[in-house]
């Protein structure tokens, strides 16, 4: 699920003095040497919103005027990569962003090109209409199957059910689907004219799943409680850190409604789960999940969600915002990091829920929290590389 890089790449990203390489490709042409200002790339775990970023390019030679002459190039794919140049084997780069041209702006000798990622197409298409809704009610479905139909049949993306799929990270989708399959989580759905992105957002929220774009493919993940820490951030890699804990995040009694009747507009089932130790400590804090576009078809599926929420949100959890060096370049959303900060006095694991990579300066900001985290062992690749011992 992470970026596939060599140990040499990891070594470079942790180095105190390195020469990172940035690459901007439009279509099949490398325009890296024209970039005046590299963009900042932002991403969160479940917003399902198109990510737009802008690259400023030197246009003194009118190198980018070809786009004015042939606007069909706006459908070309642009890619932003970052990495290092190995002395013998050449560039080793990871793709941070891929998207298509959305806007062109020429001002004096600067061409600004704004790109938008894979979610954009899903915001441009609708699923069903009020008079002719799209329904998945003929049988019980895994939520992952509904997401697949929504993205492919109505979002217009690749239907290839293998890792060759160009739009969907098939392996992650399969893993995600297997989670629902193992827990026998089943749903039905009914869409009457909402945007495909909105439908996908409903699925993400209703199943508490991460859906985001990685390496130009839509990726899925449902966080599980136990995991390992892939990287340690400490005083030697943290430039700044803030920690917050918000009591309003706590949910210790969760109601989940299901068995929705489209005609009578009524949920005929509501289950709940209560985290009694949390109630004793923090008082009763209730919340409800119900949706008229997607709903659970049995109490087992609904209680699975209720328990998931009261388990993850039963106690106030820490959220950190970590300004880090390029040591975090290979880390992706959903992975866990160990954060040790002497000034605030924390040394614990967090899950990455969002990230902001400033390609211009080489700073990375992680938004991470402990809502879906239980203490795992620390698998620090630098430790593993040097002494091959897990600590």
């Amino acid at each position, binding site marked *: 699920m992470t970026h596939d890089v060599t140990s040499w790449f990891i070594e470079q990203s942790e180095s105190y*003095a390195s020469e990172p390489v940035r690459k901007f490709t439009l279509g099949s042409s490398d325009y890296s040497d024209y970039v005046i200002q590299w963009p900042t790339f932002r991403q969160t775990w479940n917003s399902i919103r198109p990510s737009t970023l802008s690259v400023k390019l030197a246009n003194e030679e009118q190198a980018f005027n070809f786009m004015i002459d042939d606007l069909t190039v706006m459908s070309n794919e642009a890619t932003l990569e970052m990495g290092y140049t190995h002395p013998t084997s050449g560039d080793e780069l990871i793709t941070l962003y891929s998207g298509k041209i959305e806007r062109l702006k020429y001002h004096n000798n600067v061409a600004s090109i704004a790109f938008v990622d894979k979610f954009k197409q899903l915001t441009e298409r609708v699923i069903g209409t009020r008079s002719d809704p799209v329904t998945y009610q003929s049988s019980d479905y895994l939520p992952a199957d509904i997401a697949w139909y929504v993205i492919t049949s109505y979002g217009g993306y690749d239907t290839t059910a293998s890792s060759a799929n160009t739009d969907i990270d098939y392996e992650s989708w399969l893993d995600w689907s297997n989670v629902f399959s193992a827990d026998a989580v089943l749903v039905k759905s009914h869409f009457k004219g909402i945007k495909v992105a909105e439908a996908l957002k409903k699925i993400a929220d209703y199943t508490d799943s991460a859906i985001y774009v990685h390496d130009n493919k839509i990726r899925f993940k449902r966080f599980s409680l136990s995991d390992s820490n892939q990287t340690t951030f400490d*005083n030697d890699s943290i430039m700044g850190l803030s920690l917050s804990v918000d009591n309003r995040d706590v949910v210790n009694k969760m109601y989940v409604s299901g068995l929705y009747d489209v005609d009578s507009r009524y949920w005929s089932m509501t289950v709940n789960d209560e985290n009694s130790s949390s109630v004793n400590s923090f008082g009763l804090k209730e919340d409800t999940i119900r949706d008229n576009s997607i709903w659970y078809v049995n109490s087992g599926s609904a209680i699975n969600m209720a328990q998931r929420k009261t388990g993850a949100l039963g106690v106030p959890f820490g959220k950190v915002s970590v300004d880090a060096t390029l040591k975090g370049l290979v880390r992706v959303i959903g992975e866990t990091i160990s954060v040790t900060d*002497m000034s605030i006095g924390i040394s614990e694991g967090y899950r990455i829920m969002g990230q902001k990579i400033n390609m211009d300066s080489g700073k990375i900001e992680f938004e991470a929290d402990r809502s879906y985290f239980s203490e795992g062992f620390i698998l620090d690749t630098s430790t593993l590389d040097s002494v091959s011992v897990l600590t």
Partner: protein
Amino acid sequence: MAQFRLFVDSSNGVDVDPTWEYLEAGSKIEDRHRVRSGRSYVYKWGDFKRFEVPVSFVNSNFKSIVNSYWDSNADLLFMEVDNPSSVTSVRIVNEDLPIGQFIAPYTNQFIGVIELESY
């Protein structure tokens, strides 16, 4: 004193004999980050070279060629004649005409400074 050559190709260029004020410099494009422990990280994204090449007693032919390079922002090559393996791609980056001043009492000899930067 070392002799240099500023040229477009093997048949178009000028030999340059700079004065003692010749200067070769460079700049790095990099970002430095200071982490909590006090350690400094430096990310070097690139670099470029600068040359300040003062010339004097050059004739009008030399002046015309160099000034035309400046005028057209020509892509040039710059090297030390005795060290032809080290060639730098440069452009003349003077804000004003590089060469244009007489050397008294001559009216056919000129003085100026050619500012070069790699690209």
